[in-house]
């Protein structure tokens, strides 16, 4: 089984040096790109490959690039920004790539920057990723020393200045327009779209923001071709995906697998199944901001389309499992506290709706709930839904809640009964 993204990653946690990376065929994709393809060719290839963004929204990467103004009349300064914020609970795939194989990311960055003709790139890295920052800094220095970054890369006419920005911490920084504000040294409030960053992004200039994993795919696509890339997958959606599992399984972790691997296979074969004494009650397939699925959904291929059809989202592809000994209401409360705390405070529904959600769930759990509270929670799910808020944070926050209300209604209702008759289902 081909694992292009993780093939170099070592099990002892140490990083891949430039020499090792080169020895494994690293920077071949870049060499080939610079030697053989014009920027628009690269865009076309990536479009043809069907690569979709791994940051959570799954937007087709080549299509996103194609909105960047190209040619003589295009603004001189354009930016490529790597989204390495990874702060969504349950997500831990980019850390793996950043720490394990930083050169792979750098190669992807140069290719993407070349494709849109950006001469400045930023890695926006969450502040807590200290090890990743150190390794990336080291790798950038190595790459610069080898002419893989900087002026006239590999003797071509293309130059790229790659800079590392370590964030001061906030989940909202991962939202791509908030990220741009943060990179500009401002409060990380998201921006309205349109205008899209491709037209007016960082410092008002055309900008592409891509996720770490997305960019790591590029060297391989460019080196091995579109057909090869499509062949990696088990479904219509191409490539591999880094899937992860956390929760009460025997061996939690992250694995690169063909796109479309089922959750059952991931949990049972790779994560070793549930720990003794625990049964799977439900799972968030793509991180904290996705809808719960149930054990009955385990055989659905984990790709954007299939998970979407089942009523959830592939998101980051990192699953959080709910077991039968954990109260779904308390789990949702934990999630909503996270979202309420991480709201940027810009738009009303998110800023004021999430704390209310938290207070309703707390009241419920503490025995102060009222029957109408469940309806209020449902109403909040609608009010904070897609399109109603300024960015996707709040709608994401509502996904686990709305699905929990649907699938685990009894658990919510249980809290409305007097304490004595509630029964001790959970620890």
């Amino acid at each position, binding site marked *: 089984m081909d694992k292009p993204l993780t093939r170099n990653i070592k099990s002892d946690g140490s990083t891949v040096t430039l020499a090792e990376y080169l020895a494994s065929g690293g920077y071949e994709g870049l060499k080939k790109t610079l030697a053989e393809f014009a920027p628009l060719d690269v865009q076309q290839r990536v479009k043809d490959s069907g690569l979709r963004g791994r940051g959570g929204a799954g937007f087709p990467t080549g299509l996103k690039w194609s909105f960047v103004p190209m040619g003589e009349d295009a603004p001189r300064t354009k930016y490529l920004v790597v989204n390495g914020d*990874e*702060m*969504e*609970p*349950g*997500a*831990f795939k*980019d*850390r793996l790539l950043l720490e394990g194989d930083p050169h792979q990311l750098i190669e992807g960055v140069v290719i993407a920057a070349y494709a849109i003709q950006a001469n400045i790139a930023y890695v926006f890295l*969450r*502040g*807590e*990723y*200290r*090890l990743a920052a150190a390794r990336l800094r080291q790798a950038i220095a190595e790459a610069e020393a080898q002419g893989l970054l900087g002026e006239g890369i590999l003797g071509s006419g293309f130059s790229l200045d790659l*800079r590392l*920005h*370590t*964030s*001061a*911490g*906030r*989940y909202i920084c991962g939202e791509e327009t908030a990220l741009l504000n*943060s*990179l*500009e*040294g*401002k*409060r*990380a409030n998201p921006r309205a779209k349109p205008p899209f960053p491709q037209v007016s992004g960082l*410092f008002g200039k055309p900008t592409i923001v891509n996720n770490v994993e997305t960019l790591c795919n590029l060297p391989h696509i460019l080196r091995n071709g579109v057909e090869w890339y499509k062949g990696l997958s088990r479904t219509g959606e191409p490539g591999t995906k880094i899937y*992860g*599992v*956390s*929760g*009460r399984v025997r061996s*939690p*972790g*992250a694995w690169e697998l063909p796109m479309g691997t089922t959750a059952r296979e991931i949990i049972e074969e790779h994560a070793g199944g549930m720990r003794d004494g625990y049964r799977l009650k439900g799972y968030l397939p793509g991180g*904290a901001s996705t809808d719960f699925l149930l054990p009955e959904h385990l055989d659905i291929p984990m790709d954007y389309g299939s998970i979407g059809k089942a009523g959830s989202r592939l998101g980051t592809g*990192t699953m*959080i499992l709910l077991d039968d000994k*954990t109260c779904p209401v308390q*789990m949702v409360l*934990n*999630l909503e506290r*996270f979202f309420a*705390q*991480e709201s*940027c405070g810009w738009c009303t529904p998110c800023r004021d709706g999430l704390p209310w959600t938290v207070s309703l769930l707390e009241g419920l759990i503490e025995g102060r709930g009222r029957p109408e509270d469940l309806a209020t929670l449902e109403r909040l799910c609608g009010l904070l839904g897609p399109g109603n808020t300024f960015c996707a944070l709040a709608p994401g926050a509502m996904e686990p809640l709305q699905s929990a209300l649907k699938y685990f209604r009894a658990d919510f209702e249980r809290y409305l009964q007097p304490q004595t008759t509630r029964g001790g289902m959970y620890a």
Partner: protein
Amino acid sequence: MTLTSDEIQAILREARHFPHPSAAAIEALNVVQRSHGWISDELLQEIAELLGMSPAELDSIATFYNLIYRRPVGRRVIHYCNSVSCWMLGAEDNRRHLSEKLGIAVGETTGNGEYTLLPIVCLGACDKAPVLMIGDETHFNVDPARLDDILGETGAP
């Protein structure tokens, strides 16, 4: 508390990367916090001046971000992850153990100024939950027994 010339140089170096110096606000706050531990009003004022901003403008940014401290903290900040996977797998046990062992509640600093205990959102290592950071170092699969080891190593009271 005043900025050292190294810090000033580092800030100016960062500022040169951007179209205007105030864009380096977060870098500057990070630089100064790394050496001073936290951002006092005096430091805030000096950084603001260096970047051509008003102190209020810089504070508007400083107070937005989780990792910028506008109050004194201990030499090492213990950030324990309280997000979903860690919560499920024992973050609260660890928190209780830390509070008891160090004699501080969340948000407090030990009397000797060594540790401050703060929660943090998901540290991106959910497969190794529960996770916490002490200073710059991240510790995985933490339980109270391991905590004793770790704090022993780092010179806990």
